[in-house]
Structures are given as structure tokens and as C-alpha cells.
């Protein structure tokens, strides 16, 4: 995929956002949710903010369909699930939802977010914003080796930031500075 054709995430995003409203992008991505297939329970790493204000992976079992593209949404659904009562809050605040996910052939995962919090304007600091953004990036890249980078959209559109800090104009790659430990990848 040449840059001439695709340039950067912003262009990507525009393209997909345009297509996304009309339906799944046939040529370059797999629509989600996928047609029902057999699900397999697999241990995966979900990244959550810990006491030291860094992301730390937790191993949880998630029912995943076959295929990389199809596993994006279940992974994020598990990451976004509300914290069980009495446990630490997760890195994802209430009011943020997954609108759609795609996987492009070049290893770019597109995560389209929505929800009342983002629509109203998420009023938060760098910490919460970086934690959410990189929990998505690390959860996807750690569990799906084909994913190299993650482009986040808001309501199907390219967004400058989620809350005024981290640029979403280009795809994000894993950022080791926000992760406490990186255990062996779970297959």
C-alpha cells in the first residue's frame, strides 16, 4: 500500500468514514460483527490502568471467533466491560462505546468510537485520555499479531483528539512508556 494512495490515517479514516455510513467496506476491510461462527474461549491480555498510572495487562478469557478482523470487537467489548463490583475501575469510562471495527490489509485496525460521553465532549485530563487510547492500542496489538497500528475515529469521523490532548489524526502504535510490564504474548 503506497502512501501516495493512502497517505496517512486521516485520509484512511475519511475514506472509511465515508464508506462506513453506507455499509461495510468490501475491498479493504471486514465488517463487524461477523457472520456467526464458532466461538473459542481464549486467554487474552486486556490492558488496564494500575495504581502506578501505567497500563498493566490482565489475562482474561474471551470468546473469540476465528479470524483476526472478527476478533477486534470481542476484544474491545471485553476491555470496555464495566468493572465487576468491588474491583478497580477500568480504563474505559462509562459513556464510550464501540461503533465499528475494521482491519485493513496493511495491519491498521480502525476503531470507531461513539457514545454520549464523546458526543457531549469528554472533559478529562491527559492521564485518562492516554490510558483509554493506549489500552485500546495495546489490547489490540498484543492479541492480534497482524495489527500494527490503530486508527481511532469518533462517530465515524476523523477526530483531532478525544479530550484535547492525544492526537488521533494518525494511527497510533504501541507506546512502551505507558505500559508497566509486558508478559509473554498469550496465543
Amino acid at each position, binding site marked *: 500500500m503506497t*502512501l*501516495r494512495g493512502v*497517505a*496517512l490515517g*486521516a*485520509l484512511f479514516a475519511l475514506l472509511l468514514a465515508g464508506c462506513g455510513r453506507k455499509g461495510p467496506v468490501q475491498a479493504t476491510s471486514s465488517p463487524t460483527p461477523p457472520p456467526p461462527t464458532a466461538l473459542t474461549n481464549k486467554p487474552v491480555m486486556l490492558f488496564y*490502568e494500575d*495504581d*502506578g*498510572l501505567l497500563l498493566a495487562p490482565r489475562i482474561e478469557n474471551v470468546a473469540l471467533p476465528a479470524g483476526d478482523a472478527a476478533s477486534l470487537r470481542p476484544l474491545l467489548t471485553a476491555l470496555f466491560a464495566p468493572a465487576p463490583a468491588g474491583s*478497580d*475501575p*477500568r*480504563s474505559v*469510562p462509562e459513556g464510550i462505546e464501540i461503533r465499528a471495527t475494521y482491519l485493513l490489509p496493511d495491519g491498521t485496525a480502525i476503531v470507531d468510537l461513539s457514545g454520549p460521553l464523546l458526543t457531549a*465532549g469528554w*472533559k*478529562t*485530563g*491527559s*492521564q*485518562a485520555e*492516554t*490510558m483509554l487510547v493506549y489500552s485500546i492500542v495495546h489490547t489490540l496489538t498484543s492479541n492480534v499479531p497482524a495489527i500494527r497500528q490503530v486508527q481511532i475515529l469518533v462517530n465515524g469521523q476523523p477526530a*483531532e*483528539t478525544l479530550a*484535547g*490532548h*492525544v*492526537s488521533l*489524526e*494518525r494511527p*497510533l*502504535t504501541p*507506546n512502551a*512508556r*505507558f505500559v508497566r510490564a509486558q508478559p509473554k504474548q498469550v496465543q
Partner: protein
Amino acid sequence: MKRAMAAVVVAATAVAGLLFAQAPERALLKSPQGEASVSTLELNSQLYLAADDFVKAMGGTMEPDGAGFKVTLLGKPGAFAVDNQYGVVRDELIAMPGLPVVIEGRAFVPWQFFRGFLATAGDLDLQWDPQTRVFTVSPRVRQLLTASISVIDLDDITKVVVQLSGKTQFTISRRQQSYVVKFGNPIGSPFTEQSYQNPHLARAIFRASEVEFQLTGADVVGSAYRLDDPFRVVLDLRTGAPAVAPSTPGAINLPQQRVPGIRTIVIDPGHGGSDTGAIGPNGTEEKAISLALARKLSASLSKKLKARVVLTRNSDEAIPLTQRTAIANEYQADLFLSIHLNSSLRKGAQGTETYFLSLDASDELSRQVAERENEADTAPSPAAPEGDLKFILWDLAQQEYLKESSDLAETIQDELSKATNTENRGVKQAPFRVLIGATMPAALVEVGFISNPDEESKLTSSEHQDKLVAAIVGAVERFKNQYESRIGVTPAPSVGAPAPAATPAPTPAAPVTTAPPTASTGTSR
């Protein structure tokens, strides 16, 4: 002419504390002036040349001057000193692999000093063949470099990118209504002359090893910086002076006079207007505290550092993130600080965080820019989306300053942790939108967690704010001192590995200027 040097050398090197010295030997110097015999010496496995022999053979002159010697070769003045590993030729430093020594009144310098001297003063090459013990002076063989030019219109700035097929030295000088970029190699140009429909650039003209950019008016000013891999010289052109008259006369209006250092600081109070930023459990809004802190910072920085301080906003108004950086660039700020208050889903989160920009894809970015620029050359009106190219270029702009930004962030984080008596969690790097495109060292500071009720109440107290401000001002002062001493004294491009030479007529935005050290006259400290 071997004299009784062996004994003398032993004595002298013992005094100088130098080991492994050997007696002087003879070598042959072949130059356009003819052949001559010169003394050499091996000290600490470096080859030294007897300066008097070499200078005489090349038809120059040399005289003692304080702790060093003044040398005139090929009509150009230079100097070296026994306690300085940098020699100087005109305004350029020459790095040497060892200190010059004086033995029985005779000065010996690492032979690389003369290689640098000849390269700078006469465009000559000096080569040493250890097998035959022959030095050869010959005209430097200058590789032809191919050039391409792209001109990109970005709001108020025109970016002119000259890309070359290899590295070379360059100088930029201002003529009445043009900038002339002169390269150290002959240039294969894509055109002889080309006109532009552009607010700042009227025409580009190639001649042998230089390119002249004719401006649309005498009020067009510029600044320049260099990018590597591929080698590029980027000239930012804009009209006239910054929006506000500088407090120091001549500081900004004369770009030729822009002195490297931390003189203008732009402080960016985070958020504003409908964008409140984070909100604390007791209703404190980030935008209000960030503004209060920025105002205090401004007052303190201008008083303590005598710096000109500009705020990106001085009221409760919404300003786009890109505009905040643009303001810093417009004012040619030497430092950019964005002030924020943090928030976390974890109730106990506390302490300070300092960030600088991460560009983990920067290698790829450089490649992309190169590709884009090549396209722009072949297609005069590129169909590629403007915003995208703009974004890549702005990324690269801050990339030039990542090391400084990292130092700045670390210094601030260090001072803030001490002042607030909290654990220093170190600095972090992320693609913060407000830092992208800043053409100066830049950092974003989170001074505390407004989401934590204890910190929220502290952050609203004027006393605590003063403490934070004092810490940041202390950090900026520390950074300023380190930065200025570094860019002022140790640019030292190694001889033989060409780096851009001095002579910024539009001052390079990056500190690539080679400023001679205080000891550069050869008299040393």
C-alpha cells in the same frame, strides 16, 4: 634535521602527562606548492604534525598568541591552543582527536587540524598515507548533488524544501529581496529558473552551487533548518514581523540578528471557553487553574529570566490546538510550555506528569515527506491532500527539537517532583496534538490531579500555585542555562563529516549555527 629530539620529547611528554609518545619522524608533504619534508609525532596513537613545518611548506605564517598560535594559511586566519581540542578557522570550529602540544617551543597539532583548515579555507583536501608516509594536498573532489525543490503553502508560512541527493555544507545569506542558499558541492538542478504563484516566494534561480529564492517583497523574512535522511534545507518564509512588537528592540524584526538562546517563551494555558478541560469532584475547572498558573508563570519568567513571555490565551476563550502551536511559531518562541491539570479514573491518582512529543514513526515520516516532495516536483499542483502533507511537515518540525524537548520535560518533572514532594515517575512521550509542529523545545505539564479531591483543593490555593510556578521557573532557568551553554560552545562538527556550516542569514531555527567558543581565538581561557 633530526636534532636531539628523542630526549626532549620524552621530557616534554612526561610534563604534559602524555604517554606512548615516540620521537618525531619525517614525512613528505606533496602540495600544489611542491614537495617538502615535515616533522610528525605520534602521541597517544594520534599522528601530529609540526605546525611550523606545515605552515611554511604551504606558504603561510604562524605566530604565538597567548597559550596558542595564530596561523594564516591560504590568506585565511585560524588558531589553535594547547588546552583546547577545537581549533578555529575563520568562524568555524575544527575538532581534533587530541590536544595540541608544544615541545621545545615547537607546536605539534593533530594533523586533522590542517585537514579541516585546508577544507575550510581553500577547498583543499589533505590526505595521509601511513604506508608511504606521504601527506597529499589536492583540490577537493566535489560530488555533484542533485537537488529538488518543493514549495508548500501553509497558512501564513511558505515552506521551501530543498532536498539534495547527499549531505553537504551550506550557508544562507540575505540579499535585498532574496535568500541565497550556497552549497559546498556543485548542484544538479531540476530547472534553471522557476516562477511561483505564492504570497512569499516569487522565483527560484539555480546557479552552479547555489540557489537564489527571490521574495515577493522586502518584508518577507525567513528562518531555516536542516533535516537529514534525506538531506534537506527547509526555509520558512513569512511576511514581516510577529504581530506584536518585540520588547527587545531588534530581537525579532531582524531575523538575521536572532541570537540562539531562550529569549521568548510561549505559555499555553490548556483548554478554555466551552472546553473546560477536566472537572474536579468539587467543580474546579482545569481551564481556570491553567490560566491562573500561566499568568503567574508569565510574570515570574519575565521577571526572573528577563524573557519575553507570550500567552496563547489570556482570557476564558476557546483556541484550537493547532493555533496554539502556530502562535509559538509565529512569535519565533524559543520555548513552548502547555499547562494542564490532570484527571484519572483512579481516585487516588496524584502527582505531576510532564510529556513531550512522541514521533515513533519518524523514520517513516521522513520517507513519506521525501516521497511527497518528489511527487510535488513532478506535479506542480499536487493532488495530494494539503492537510496531510502539512501534518507530516509539522511533525518533522518538532522532531528537530526532540532531544531538547526531552531535556526540558525531564528538568521540569524533576523540579516539580521535588517541589510537590511526590515520586518522580519520569517523563512520558505521546503524540500530544498541541506539541505537534512546534519549532522549538516544547513540553506539556500536568501539574496535578484535579480528579483527586485533596489535590483539587491544593491546586486552587494560591500558595500551592506559587510553589508550582517557582518549580517550573526554576526548571526553565536550569534548562536555559544548559541549553545556551551547549548551543553556544559545543557544536563541533567532526572534521571530515560535513555538517551545515554557520552563516545563517535567516537564523536556522535549529541550533546548527557554529558559534566559536570563547576560547576560539587561540588564547583560550
